[in-house]
């Protein structure tokens, strides 16, 4: 009996994202046909692109960044906190790591450790501003994090200019921070003549840590309890304000990791054009897609990167590459609708099951009311 219930729940959980992807594919097909392109070519092109070894590297690298971003967002989501400020937080973290790395050279892995800590710390501090504004002054984090993103962009442009931390190579338009020492390079994993970011291991560890923290610790329990029902959490002795602040800081700390795969694995210096805003919003979409589950987020990140990377490939084959953005948007919207529908369906089935059990001749006199 219990096993059947588990299987049913599993099926219901998988049905929603599949339904959403199918719906998004159907809708994009309609749009493609209307605009005069063939859906069959488009989808086979995307699949074909995704199975080439060189593009697998590109997709994995991009999803490493997206995965971390979605993880940062998911920590907030689990307690009804919307950290839309991952953009500002990760860019500040990456900039700080680049500046510190350009000035300090420590032996061996110590350098990398230092830079990771600096990035996490600075990003967490920037997130704490929003946390404090919420707990001390009652400002909604939805608004404050969006505003802080713009403030961060301005400050970063200011700091990266040649007057401060920026340097401009001769004959180059681009202003970057000083290059990192060789010891700061995070070794890649060779594959198909290219390198997958070694940081993908760190990202996977972060995912495991996230799952452990939420499901196996008291902090995680308090966090989920607060997200489910604030009043119940307060009644059981949770300090909600403290939770808001610490989960915001934690979310920011994870956001600090977002820029590092690129910084330590490829660019070796910070520039505004390499560390763009927008990854935070992508993280929100992927967290929604993966339903805040570490594995679900991983699938979401892979799908998202695959779609995004195939854009230029589609353009070559005379399909407007922007169709992938529509696909992404539709997937997110239909996935949240599908989850809600499936949740309702599950509840109705549960209620029916309870009702059936209650209606059956009771072996004992236990009668309760379905919650």
């Amino acid at each position, binding site marked *: 009996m219990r096993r059947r219930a588990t299987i049913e729940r599993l099926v219901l959980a998988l049905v929603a994202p599949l339904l959403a992807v199918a719906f998004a594919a159907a809708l994009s097909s309609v749009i493609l046909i209307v605009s005069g392109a063939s859906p069959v070519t488009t989808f086979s092109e995307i699949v074909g692109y995704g199975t080439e070894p060189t593009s697998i590297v590109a997709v994995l690298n991009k999803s490493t960044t997206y995965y971390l971003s979605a993880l940062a967002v998911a920590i907030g989501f689990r307690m009804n906190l919307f950290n839309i400020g991952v953009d500002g937080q990760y860019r500040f973290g990456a900039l700080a790591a680049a500046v510190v790395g350009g000035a300090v050279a420590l032996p061996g892995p110590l350098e990398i450790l230092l830079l990771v800590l600096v990035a996490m710390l600075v990003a967490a501090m920037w997130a704490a501003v929003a946390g404090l*504004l919420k707990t001390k002054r009652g*400002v*909604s984090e939805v608004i404050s994090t969006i505003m802080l993103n*713009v403030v961060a962009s*301005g400050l970063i442009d200011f700091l990266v200019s040649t007057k401060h931390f920026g340097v401009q190579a001769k004959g180059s338009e681009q202003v970057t921070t000083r290059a990192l020492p060789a010891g700061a390079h995070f070794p890649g994993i060779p594959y198909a003549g290219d390198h997958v970011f070694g940081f993908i291991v760190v990202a996977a560890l972060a995912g495991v840590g996230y799952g452990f923290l939420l499901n196996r610790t008291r902090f995680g329990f308090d966090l989920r309890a607060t997200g489910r029902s604030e009043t119940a959490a307060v009644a059981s002795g949770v300090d909600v304000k403290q939770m808001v602040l610490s989960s915001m800081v934690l979310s920011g700390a994870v956001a600090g990791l977002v820029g590092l795969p690129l910084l330590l694995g490829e660019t070796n210096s910070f520039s505004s054009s390499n560390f763009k805003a927008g990854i935070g919003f992508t993280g929100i979409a992927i967290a929604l897609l993966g339903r805040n589950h570490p594995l679900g987020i991983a699938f979401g990140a892979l799908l998202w990167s695959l779609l995004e990377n195939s854009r230029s490939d589609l353009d070559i084959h005379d399909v407007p590459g*922007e169709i992938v953005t529509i696909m992404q948007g*539709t997937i997110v*919207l239909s996935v949240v609708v599908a989850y809600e529908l499936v949740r309702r369906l599950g509840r109705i089935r549960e209620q029916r099951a309870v009702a059936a059990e209650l209606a059956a001749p009771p072996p004992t006199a236990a009668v309760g009311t379905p919650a």
Partner: protein
Amino acid sequence: MTALDTAPAGVTPPTRRSRLVSRTSPARLAVLVAGLIVCLAAVRAITRADDLTSSGTVGAALRLAVPIGLAGLGGLWAERAGVVNIGLEGMLILGTWFGAWAGYSFGPWWGLLAGVAGGALGGLLHALATVTFGVDQIVSGVAINILAAGVTRYLSTLVFEGHGGGVTQSPRVADIATITLPGVSPWLVSVERQHWFLLSDVSGILGGLVTEVSPVTVVAVALVPISYFVLWRTAFGLRLRSCGENPVAAESLGVNVYRMKYLAVMVSGGFAGLGGAFLAEVFANIYREGQTNGRGFIGLAAMIFGNWRPGGLAAGASLFGFTDALNLRSGGESVHALLLLLALGVGGVSLWNLTRRRIIAAVIGLVVTGLTLTWFFVSAVVPDEFVSFAPHITTLLVLSLASQRLRMPAADGKPYRRGQAG
């Protein structure tokens, strides 16, 4: 907005102070505005940052306040019916695209209509997701923002590419003729040029309000009292607001809560769409990707600042429009001058706190005053990068000062199912 949005405990007892904020009589408002103008005039006279109150700045401020205010009005309609609309930014984007497209294809007035329709379409989608399917309102809003950016980009490749535009921008859109008050405007400008204390400031401000004003601006400004009238003085408005305060009670009195919410969110999207069309057609004469630059969110902040009321919202929109306008008109100098105003304001509040024996608040305030004054005297201009986020930091400052005294509609943001009272 989320479940955790309660103001810190122990604030907002019905003191004299909170009444001052919530019930502003016309006389008090006039005194407030006059005081603000005198302060601005004084700061301008001291710092010689003449663009602070020039007709050019005020005109730009008015133009920039329109999209913010329209987005805010959109937020007001939706949230008064109990639906949080973070998707305003996306609806603003839809408005810019459809406005520019129809404006370019059929003429500017059609562009405005198409902008409204595009925004309302976004609103319809939001209503479908949140009201019918019961999706979390913020989640749906975020998804609409992503979707709107994608849809407009895709449409641009289909429609604008090869017609003098491209993926990221449209061809130029024809102007809508502006209105200038004959006789008065040139006279005001000549007084303004004299740079007399207060007199030139007042004529600069008035001059900005009557010179080259777009008819769309007039419509947008008129929508503020109209919204007030419809929402607070008609039976329809009462019903709509009851859906945002207590939908169960509204339903028991025979109000069709779903239909009301649908209508409110579509009106909300329509207003945002008009704001977007204004941005593309009147302000820039072109659609450009990223043109909205977070104005939907700022509009939402203006509405929160205005305590979910049209008047306060308009004040908030003007404030953000003004700081945004400084970006365009010798921003470094003007924002530098505003530092003095900020220092005076914070210093005044701190001294008042001191007399009320709120020592910690007073000390923090005085430290901030000192730092701001130092910054003011040490430098001559504020770096451009800092000017670019002046509206956003103002939003944060204002909200952090005002948030605790605000009251949002009681059922705002809460999902509602028909017959949930059981």
